């Protein structure tokens, strides 16, 4: 009898249609929610929220911390919707109450054949998506964590693994491919958001005989060009912007004569078909493992007296590029870091003006930037009011060595090796119109540089210090406003959202997610009456 009453009451609750994340919601985001890796399809990592200001940022305090199980070096950029934060770890996703940090549900794929970093989830409809290290796109009901599907799109036997946050656009979820340092064939694929079925696949390296294959030697089938970072999307032209990784073998370039298309490039792909509209190769015939994995930031700005649709790209190779995003035309490249000794500049044709004798040798070559690059994948911020792009950069050089061993695919043999030494991380504000630095903020630490940035409308910029500090700066001037020691290195990017009516800034440290908000004294809480009732 008791059960009957209980359940009748449960059923009598009005049927609630679960709120759905619609494509137009992500197009308008971010608002209170943070709905995609970079907050918006244009890759700005910028929030319109205004509660946190340069004046009150000094009052930021941690609101909660969630220790992510089995985590070692989290790289996840959270997604937040309707008061729930979704974070990923290797082969696992966690749904947290974004106001309290309490776990709501978790999903872990204990049978995954690989383990590696995971950079975050995607959301669309009533589902959240993430990829397993062994290439399964997994869709979960966002409120309950129930599995809708887990669909394999690539095989680890082909040298492919997965690390990136998927990008959910309209009815598609876009996934990429990692593993380029061991030999594989990179690709970007669109899967059905409904079923996980593959809709199209675009390889980043041509097949033998296809146009572009003449820029390779015999190892083209293992050419790399991994697409291991998510991309940006321009709704007006229905175009995806995706970057590709290094050619393989990384340091032994003698076996791959030519430009090695389309490695170390930015690709513009049609969302509906995957067809390549244009490509731009930043580092033709790369010999230093300078993947192009850094965020392509989409922007409309004045260029030589007229408005142009551009894409900004701070590249690992030490240069900061501006391209026309409709045509792929090269507009300008300026030096991103001071330490660049492999090219004296970028020519009018967009190709580097090479300084001779910088390829890896058996004895080793001292080259700047180091193998980590002048920047990397973490994510930059464009602030529409300051008009500045904020990029965490690394002034570092390193040794590049060639190996005498013959390259062997999937043996994790990149044809040599690289080590870096010393280094200085500097957060830089760059004016995209001129390529000049507006200000710079040097960071302490060991030259690791793996934390991204986020800004808020009032002009506060957040980034991670190289020592495990989350730092708030004045976006206009680069002045220090606030810092907090998270106790361990962060290798992820911060996000901004509103939950419970309060603005939060959240970031993953190596093993936990921290959420910060403005200090408010806590009122004592009167515990409610708790009763227990036996099951009949």
């Amino acid at each position, binding site marked *: 009898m008791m059960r009957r009453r209980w359940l009748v009451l449960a059923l009598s609750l009005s049927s609630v249609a679960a709120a759905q994340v619609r494509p137009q919601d992500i197009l308008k985001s971010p608002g209170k929610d943070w709905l995609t890796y970079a907050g918006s399809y244009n890759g700005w990592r910028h929030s319109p929220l205004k509660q946190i200001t340069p004046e009150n940022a000094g009052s930021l305090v941690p609101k909660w911390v969630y220790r992510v199980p089995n985590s070692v070096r989290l790289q996840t950029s959270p997604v937040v919707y309707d008061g729930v934060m979704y974070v990923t770890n290797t082969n696992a996703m966690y749904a947290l109450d974004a106001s309290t940090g309490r776990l709501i549900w978790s999903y872990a794929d204990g049978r995954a054949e690989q383990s590696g970093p995971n950079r975050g989830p995607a959301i669309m409809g009533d589902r959240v998506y993430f990829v397993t290290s062994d290439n399964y796109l997994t869709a979960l009901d966002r409120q309950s964590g129930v599995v809708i599907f887990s669909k394999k799109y690539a095989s680890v036997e082909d040298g492919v693994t997965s690390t990136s946050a998927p990008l959910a656009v309209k009815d598609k979820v876009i996934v990429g491919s990692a593993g380029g340092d061991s030999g594989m064939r990179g690709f970007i694929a669109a899967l059905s958001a409904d079923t996980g079925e593959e809709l199209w696949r675009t390889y980043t390296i041509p097949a033998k005989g296809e146009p572009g294959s003449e820029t390779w030697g015999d190892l083209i089938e293992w050419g790399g060009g991994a697409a291991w970072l998510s991309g940006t999307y321009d709704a007006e032209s229905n175009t995806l912007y995706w970057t590709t990784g290094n050619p393989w073998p990384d340091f032994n370039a003698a076996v791959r004569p030519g430009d090695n298309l389309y490695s170390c490039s930015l690709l513009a792909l049609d969302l509906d078909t995957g067809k390549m509209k244009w490509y731009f190769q930043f580092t033709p015939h790369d010999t230093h493992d300078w993947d192009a994995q850094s965020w392509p930031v989409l922007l409309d700005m004045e260029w030589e007296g007229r408005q142009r649709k551009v894409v900004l790209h701070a590249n690992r190779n030490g240069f900061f590029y501006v391209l026309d995003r409709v045509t792929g035309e090269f507009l300008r490249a300026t030096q991103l870091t001071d330490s660049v000794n492999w090219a004296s500049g970028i020519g009018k044709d967009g190709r580097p003006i090479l300084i001779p004798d910088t390829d890896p040798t058996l004895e080793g070559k001292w080259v700047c930037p180091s193998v980590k690059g002048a920047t990397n994948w973490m994510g930059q911020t464009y602030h529409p009011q300051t008009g500045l792009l904020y990029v965490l950069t690394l002034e570092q050089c390193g040794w590049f060595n060639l190996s005498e061993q013959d390259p062997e695919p999937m043996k994790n043999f990149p044809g040599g090796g690289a080590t870096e030494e010393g280094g200085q991380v500097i957060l830089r504000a760059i004016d995209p119109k001129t390529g000049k630095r507006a200000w710079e903020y040097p960071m302490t630490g060991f030259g690791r540089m793996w934390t991204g940035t986020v800004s808020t409308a009032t002009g506060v910029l957040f980034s991670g210090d190289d020592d495990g500090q989350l730092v708030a700066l004045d976006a206009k001037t680069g002045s220090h406003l606030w810092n907090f020691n998270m106790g361990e290195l962060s290798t992820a990017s911060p996000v901004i959202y509103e939950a419970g009516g309060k603005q939060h800034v959240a970031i993953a440290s190596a093993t936990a997610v921290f959420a910060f908000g403005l200090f408010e004294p806590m009122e004592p809480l009167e515990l409610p009456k708790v009763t227990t*009732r036996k099951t009949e």
Partner: protein
Amino acid sequence: MRILACVLLLAAPLAAQHGLYEGESKNPAIGDPKAIAVGEKLYMRSCAGCHGPDGSGGRGPNLVRRPMWHPLTDEKIFSLIRNGLPGADMPATNLTDDETWNLVAFIHALIGPAADNPAAGDGAAGEKVFWSEKTGCANCHAIHGKGGRLGPDLTNIGGLRPLALIKESVLKPSEGLYFLGNEAVAVKLKNGETIRGVARNRDNYSLQVIDRQGKLHLISMRDVTELEIREGSPMPGDYGKRLSEAELENLFAFLARQSLRKGEEESK
């Protein structure tokens, strides 16, 4: 009228974090069907008397539940069979190395995911039992997103849990459970509203409740006047009486084959 709730309180998400596979040995007997078959005979002859034919225990401990929280490596199981437990009723044996590994291989399969082993019943018939109004399992449980949201997801239950534990969860849903995350609650709010469902998490300061419609409620304890918690599982405990032996076997077979990875391999 009976409104049925069929909540298998298996706390499914926890399993993958407790190293069910951590103890896998490289001994060739592990996973070898022939070795498992030989091991099964040895088990039925010498072990089933105390540990039960399905490993669910009796005079001896339950072999199936224990590894969820305290996993044993295959080598440790080998050593226990060989040397026994001095001071307890578990005797030493004088089996050969090969025989012992065959036995370990069987126990490994017994305590491993149900989907890895053949189940006795008819899965196709069990599928009908699962989705029938008579059982009402899908009122609370989902498979591939179809079904209710109150109880644990069963999409991968065979890939996570041993068969004996699936059986126990259907027949004795309130036995030996880990309740946090699966408590049926009624939450009276200061605004007069009452929310009923399953608390996926709670502490003195907040509650995260999923209701029968699958809607999530994030509740601050500041807004709560009264919290009522049900002891025991909201899942009916009488399926052993309501279903015939054949229906149960078929249902177990259907649940045992619910495995994400296995399904993927078959569909290729």
